[in-house]
């Protein structure tokens, strides 16, 4: 059986990859996917602990997080589309009208 720490380290690595993606990628969709990665890191952590303790609460938590992530995806994609409509691009660097 894979020990708990392995799962946790994997989740932490996923979280960091996701965070780095948010910080450096230029394409809005990729940034968005990176955020999903961070959420899934949380899922993995919940599940790992839940399995380790044989506790149902963690399992249930993961389902709720997945559901919420789906809702977020819906609204996020709609916003990305509206950005694309108004500017013709979804490059993060060009979204700088609001500043100072």
């Amino acid at each position: 059986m894979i020990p708990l720490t392995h799962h946790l380290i994997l989740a932490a690595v996923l979280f960091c990859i996701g965070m780095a993606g948010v910080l450096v990628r230029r394409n809005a969709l990729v940034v968005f996917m990176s955020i999903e990665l961070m959420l899934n890191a949380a899922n993995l952590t919940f599940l790992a602990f839940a399995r380790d303790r044989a506790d149902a609460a963690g399992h249930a938590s993961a389902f709720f997080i997945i559901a919420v992530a789906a809702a977020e995806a819906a609204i996020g994609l709609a916003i990305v589309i509206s950005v694309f409509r108004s500017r013709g691009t979804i490059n993060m660097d060009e979204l700088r009208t609001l500043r100072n």
Partner: protein
Amino acid sequence: MNIPSLTFLDFQPVLPALLLAVGGIVLLLTEVFQSAATINRAYQSMVALAFSAVAGAVAAATTLEPAREVFLGFGVSDPFSGAVTVLVCVGLGLSVLVSAGFLRHRNAERGEFYALLLFAGAGMSLLAMSNEFITLFINLEVMSVSTYALSAWLRRGTRPSEAGFKYFILGAFSAAILVYGASLLYGATGTTKLSELAGLLPAAVASNPGLTYLGAGLVAVGLAFKVAAVPFHMWTPDVYEGAPTPVSALMSAGVKATAFASLVRVFLPFAQDLGPNHAQLMTYAFAALALLTMVVGNLMALPQRNVKRMLAYSSVAHAGYLLLGVAALFARPTGGEGPLAVTPLLAGAEGAARQQTLQAILFYLLAYTVTSLGSFGALAALERREDEPRGTAWDLEKFAGLSQRKPGWALAMAAMMLSLGGIPPTVGFMGKLFIFRAAVDAGLVWLAVAGVLASAAGVYYYLRVVVYMYMRPSQDGVTVPERQWTTELALVLSTAAVVLLGVAPGTLSAWLGKASVLFSQ
């Protein structure tokens, strides 16, 4: 197998949220029966207003009931959550009033707008009651997803969609941080319920301090984002500027109030059950956040000529004063062990003192809600849609000579500016008085002094608006938008509240005294 049973008593406290949600659904359904030819949406704002008012009244009744756990401990119903819901409903109602004129003027009145406002309100109300991390996360998202959509509502120019996008990216980012933090805390303690967390924390901190602290820190970051604490505030000015003004108003009032409620509720167990050293560290963390937020918020508002951005930074600064109150709540010193030793919350003499602090926070939230709604409302009344794409719609010059063109609006705006600046006889002054007093009582004297100095700097940019309204001649060719009675009603209501509560805050003290009770084990 133990099947949990829910009774009416579980549902009764969430009635305000249910009402708001039902209101939203009703609005969406009536939209179906509109035909393109005879379309008339004037009723929608009234429906939304009615649902907010009824929900607010129901929530006000909740504040008089004793605190208890509902839904098997996933939520709590206590006077504090009831009071926050009342604040949310007040904010919603005023925001709806301002929106009615604002949207009609821009041909942007569609049914989903009010539905989204009401859904956001339902999320806020439930967030104030959430007593478990996943419930908290879901309600936070219900609130956030609605506000993401609302901030990108207008389809004119590039600003609204950019604001929505920024809010969405950063909001989702911070939510992911929060939920990862929650998962780590779950790992450290084995529970996601705040009520169970309290008892398990000491052992968790002793055996696994790293995991506990990392988890708590990440959760704090997620909530600090919602309250717009520096340095997690960067989204605030951009989003407030790009979002429709009534939505900015609701974000600065409702979102902030509920996020603060949640912050207090989540970190209560930490202040309650950890040893003095940990509690002291936590107090310092919040004190540092408060200091940074007050100073940076005020300093950045100083050079703004764009009044909407100025109000956004001002909302950051006010989050700082509130954080000062939160730090005071956690820092109640006792005579015994060390300067910042902590006793169980809300019990005995120290509990009474903490309740005072909580009351000060609640009063400040109320003060800021009406003042913020009023100032954004006046701004909404004044801005013209033609200017929006250029970003000059909110320039200080637009306020020049307003006292001659629209003396009533100018008076309302002046009252709001005085209140934001903390000048008597306004509610903002009383709010600051209570908060700073609580901080001094809790031994955070220097932080209170810093707060007073920071708010002194704030007076400058608030008064500048007043100077423009009363002491500068109008620009050539400036026209005043047509009258919108709903907006003016909102202005009258908020001005009356600002002045009356400033002159006689005692009228509410009985209610606030009852309402500032948090559920605790």
